[in-house]
């Protein structure tokens, strides 16, 4: 018996015991026991095989590289993704489309948060605030002033971007954990304000009767049409964020994340570029909020709780901080998985927590490793 074997046994034991204890109150002793045994054996097996054939983490990287080599070029790759996405309404039921539309909205949100957390390294725990401001601006402009979709959308996005800028300007004096706490507070302030400002936002009753979008006289209310609207904005977000990422702005963001002192020694105005990142993220979150309001036709503060911020952050971490493709996959998984596994939906948060802890143990960089700035 050497110490490595004892360490492996102990590690597998603790991880599986911990997971089993999590499930104990929900599924009873028997199920938790079975989970413990299965997980323990699985972990041992993984450790053993990884000893034999290189490390799991590095193997996953090799797989990612091989997949990347299979993809011929960027434009063709995009086409490969877009083609099935374009034809989706032809062969799927409304339920599937509903999930797809929701995924699209969350993809935009997660991409936006990825700019702030993944690229620039500013932890934000109240990102839902921008989503809420976008949705409420849109709803209020539409129901109070009667503005249509295409005029309310840019206005709401501008309002959200401005809100991002105004909030970030003082908050960016803080760093790390302190900044995270302030953003968390900001998220709560926005939700509580929306909940209590009855005369303006109708409080907890929410705003109903939001108009469905039109496009040259065609109503986009049917799910299949709305799906194309969301798809358009998702593709737009991916292209724009990719391009900004591969420019001097993206390089400045990543440099700030990597080493702020060295970045300022290279002539980068750190406050200005952090403000850019937060405003840019708020821009897309506001857009996602508009799409959400236009889809639901009804919004209330309940949709913008702290758990929502956590969910968006989980998408970014699951997919891989800083990786655009990873974040998209993370968003789709976290929207689609609970839908696919309706039975365990009440354990969604539990499974999410357990999943992220396991991810942090075995693959801390997320499913996809974020590539650096301008790999052209």
């Amino acid at each position: 018996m050497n110490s490595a074997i004892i360490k492996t046994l102990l590690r597998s034991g603790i991880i599986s015991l911990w997971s089993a204890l999590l499930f104990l109150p929900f599924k009873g002793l028997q199920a938790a026991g079975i989970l413990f045994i299965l997980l323990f054996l699985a972990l041992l097996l993984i450790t053993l095989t990884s000893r034999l054939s290189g490390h799991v983490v590095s193997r996953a990287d090799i797989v990612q590289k091989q997949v990347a080599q299979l993809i011929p070029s960027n434009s063709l790759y995009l086409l490969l993704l877009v083609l099935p996405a374009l034809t989706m309404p032809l062969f799927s039921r409304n339920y599937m489309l509903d999930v797809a539309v929701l995924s699209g909205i969350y993809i935009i949100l997660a991409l936006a948060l990825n700019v702030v957390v993944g690229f620039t390294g500013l932890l934000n725990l109240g990102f839902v605030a921008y989503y809420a401001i976008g949705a409420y601006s849109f709803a209020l402009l539409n129901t109070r002033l009667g503005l249509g979709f295409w005029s309310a959308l840019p206005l709401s996005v501008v309002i959200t971007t401005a809100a991002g800028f105004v909030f970030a300007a003082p908050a960016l004096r803080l760093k790390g954990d302190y900044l995270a706490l302030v953003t968390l507070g900001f998220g709560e302030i926005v939700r509580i304000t929306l909940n209590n400002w009855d005369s303006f936002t109708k409080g907890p009753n929410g705003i109903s009767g939001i108009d469905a979008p039109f496009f040259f006289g065609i109503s986009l209310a049917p799910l299949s049409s709305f799906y194309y609207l969301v798809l358009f904005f998702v593709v737009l977000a991916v292209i724009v964020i990719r391009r900004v990422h591969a420019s001097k702005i993206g390089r400045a963001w990543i440099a700030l994340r990597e080493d702020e002192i060295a970045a300022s020694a290279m002539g980068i105005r750190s406050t200005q570029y952090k403000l850019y990142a937060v405003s840019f993220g708020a821009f897309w979150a506001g857009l996602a909020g508009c799409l959400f309001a236009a889809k639901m036709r009804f919004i209330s503060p309940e949709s913008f709780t702290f758990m929502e911020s956590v969910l968006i952050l989980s998408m970014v971490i699951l997919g891989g901080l800083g990786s655009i493709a990873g974040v998209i996959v993370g968003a789709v998984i976290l929207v689609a998985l609970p839908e696919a596994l309706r039975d365990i939906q009440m354990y969604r948060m539990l499974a999410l927590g357990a999943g992220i802890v396991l991810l942090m143990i075995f693959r801390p960089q997320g499913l996809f490793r974020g590539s650096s700035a301008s790999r052209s």
Partner: protein
Amino acid sequence: MLLEVRAVSKHFGGIRAVEDITFSLKQGIILSIIGPNGAGKTTLFNCLTGFMKPTRGNIIFSGTTISDLPADRINRLGISRTFQNIRLFKGMSVIENVMVAQHAKIRSGLLPIIAHSPSFRSEEASVRQTAFEYLAFLGLESSAEQGAGNLPYGAQRRLEIARALASEPQLILLDEPSAGMNPLETDEMMATIRKIREMGKTIILIEHDMKFVMGISDRIIVLDHGVKIAEGAPQEVKDNPLVIEAYLGKETH
């Protein structure tokens, strides 16, 4: 004069890290700052590059007072530096590290970036080309696409110099460029620094290796306990009794 340092002091509470230092520097000179550990060399560097504000005194760089300016502004005015404890952007590739340093020169704004306009693309291509030339200058061209954190130690030091050069400074400050290098690498580093001077740059360096300092410097400033105890050509400094005392201690018999 390219750089004038006038009576600069930096105090941390009661500790006088740098006390009343005055010197000036002409273009194209290699100046070394030497002194025992804790003499205030790096503190002086931090004051020159805007990472610390001097408690007293003025720093004037080609006619502009820079003692109150932030670090990024000072870099854009033409002073660049490396760090004693290497500070690379480890998550980026080698060439991207050098591309970051050209940040201030890039003109393309947000719209050309999003539109991928021809002017943006040609500018990006030239930035990459320039970065590659600086890498080649320091012999790093073969590892351009590697992760910066994976480079061996000596190569990381050279990459920091390539990055500092890429922001096209008039004055470049090197904090212990040969630290941790073997004799062969140290010789190469000396040759590199001479070549940087031939490019028309002015260089200030902090160094502990006396062979290196004596071999390369036009002028030397010796600090001890934050005070300048000697300044002059290498030979003058070497024979100065104050310097010998600072390094070896006083003769007692």
